[in-house]
């Protein structure tokens, strides 16, 4: 079949429309709804990054929240007003003292946040390129552990377990939408690139792809660094929205939330990840209200009910639909054969 340009652009357009729908719902709803919408859009940026790696390579990552953390801390250093920084960070070690005076605009902070995360991605890429399956899962988790440990213990730079405060709020609803659309475009550009196609070939059949001359490790590393950049940008957006955050926001429960999103939607598909992010963001908010007692006549339920129900949803999806809502399909692309199971239909 001939490659038609409109068909190639269809998936990112549909996904951007979903993001726009989230934004419009946020704009017409009250402040609470708007907050949920912005966080959902930030999540869309994150899962677009995560699925750049895991959808194309077929390797699940438990460590991408580490990139988000780096992005958030970078954005905090770049945007907290200088006088406040002077009082917050009195004991900065000498090589990092310049951080007290740097100052940048919001957009620059987001890009630099992504770049700093990409540097960590570059440093860890050689390990990721070599590993698959369970080993890779544990290695990515180990990356998260290292970053978390350093962030929570390096008190003179990161304030340790104290919160980062005083970040000016710059992530508006429309800014978040803009970045979400950009992230979807970047993720789709990689998906349709030569490297993305070769990486998906290695996902379907590792040895055949190697035999056909695909340099699997190199493509994995490329996808890994690109996804680190997007997740770092998501972290910066998050920091510039919540204005103060704690290192505990970037650990296992955040990881779990994003895993629910991509598994529910289908972790082999960008569309699945974006859909999952939108659906789970709403679900989390509903569960939070349920826990606060808004549906049970005002009597608050014990803390933990929301997490328990979310875990239940994830287990149910894993047991009944191991590949999620979308499987390996993408919205807007026709499937060639209805009988293809667990295999991605040929697209190009």
């Amino acid at each position, binding site marked *: 079949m001939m490659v038609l340009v409109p068909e190639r652009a269809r998936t990112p357009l549909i996904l951007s429309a979903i993001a726009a729908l989230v934004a419009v719902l946020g704009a017409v709803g009250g402040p609470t709804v708007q907050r949920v919408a912005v966080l959902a859009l930030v999540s869309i940026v994150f899962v677009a990054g995560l699925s750049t790696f895991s959808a194309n390579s077929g390797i*699940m990552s438990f460590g991408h929240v580490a990139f988000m953390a780096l992005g958030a801390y970078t954005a905090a250093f770049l945007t907290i007003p200088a006088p406040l920084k002077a009082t917050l960070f009195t004991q900065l070690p000498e090589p990092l003292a310049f951080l007290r005076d740097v100052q940048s605009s919001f957009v620059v902070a987001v890009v630099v946040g992504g770049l700093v995360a990409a540097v960590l991605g570059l440093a*860890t890429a*050689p*390990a990721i390129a*070599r*590993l698959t*399956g*369970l*080993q890779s*899962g*544990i*290695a990515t988790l*180990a*990356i998260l*552990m*290292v970053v978390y*440990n*350093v962030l929570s*213990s*390096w008190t003179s730079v990161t304030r340790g377990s104290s919160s980062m405060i005083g970040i000016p709020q710059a992530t508006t609803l429309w800014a978040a939408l803009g970045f979400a659309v950009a992230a979807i475009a970047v993720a789709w550009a990689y998906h349709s690139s030569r490297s993305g196609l070769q990486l998906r070939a290695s996902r379907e059949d590792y040895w055949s792809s190697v035999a056909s001359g695909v340099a699997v490790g190199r493509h994995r590393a490329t996808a890994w660094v690109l996804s680190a950049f997007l997740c770092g940008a998501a972290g910066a957006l998050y920091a510039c929205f919540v204005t103060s955050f704690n290192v505990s926001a970037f650990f*296992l*429960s955040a990881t*779990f939330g994003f*895993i629910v999103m991509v*598994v529910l939607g289908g972790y082999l598909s960008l569309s699945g990840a974006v859909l999952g992010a939108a659906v789970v963001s709403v679900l989390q908010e509903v569960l939070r209200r349920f826990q606060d007692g808004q549906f049970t006549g005002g009597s608050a*339920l*014990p*803390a*933990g*009910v929301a*997490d*328990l129900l*979310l*875990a*239940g949803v*994830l*287990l149910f999806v*894993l*047991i009944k639909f*191991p590949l999620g809502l979308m499987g390996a399909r993408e919205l807007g692309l026709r499937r060639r054969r209805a009988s293809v199971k667990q295999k991605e239909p040929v697209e190009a």
Partner: protein
Amino acid sequence: MIVDYIVSALGLGALYALLTIGVALLFGVLGLMNFAYGEIILAAAFALYFFRDAPWLFAVAMAVVFAVAVALLSERLAFHPLRGADPVTLMIASFAVSLALQSVARMTVLPRAQGVPPQDFLAQRVDILGARVSVRDLVTLVLCGLVLVAVAYLMGRTSLGVQLRAAAENFQMAESLGVKGNRVIASAFVIAGVLAAVGAVVLVTRQGAVSAQMGLQPMLIGVIGAVLGGMSSLRGAALGGFILGVGTATLEALLPSDLIAFRDAFLFTALIGVLVVRPQGLLSGSKVRVS
């Protein structure tokens, strides 16, 4: 000083070996890297807190009962329907089980950390070779050592042990030769539960408190030790855990105090290094097997 260090390093090594075996056993038989292992330990620790005024041995017995019950329940509800799924799916599922159990604990019985008063006899010190060694460290060493010997006997000399090893080697072949798959898997969970309970007894006496998050650290230790030692070889895993424990005790004795906070970062960096250089684990041969 030296005797003191040796006893505490060996004790920590034995404890970590114990935790590691619990993780490695389930991985060998089911391909399950069980993140919910920490919550099995939590169940046992809760029993110790709940029966803190009862005689110590009774509390320990109840800890074993609680841990085994939670282990079997998680198998039945979550891992049984997923039998045969790939290891990463199982790992995500165990992540969910872990969070669910932790939430249940936080909702019902442990909204915040609770102190467990230490037993009097554990707080004493005795003279060995002129050094004052704490009874706590000695009990850790003896208890964990005994359990390790018992596991070695069980796996090596009994019919159940042979069946477990056969199932780990090749589940389908073992089943077609008459090994009852469901029974073997259930008994693997029971053994993991007992190991978790013993681990919990030691951990609670060391920390003097229980909390909903207490399972994370021992679970991570089990996973790191298992990866270090080679994930499918029980003997290698035990050795990996032991080395990890002795290494941790040594790091704590030698690292300057401002770097101790970064101990975990060193450990996990080393773990990534091991995975890259020898994905099959430091101590296992090229052929991965359980023995």
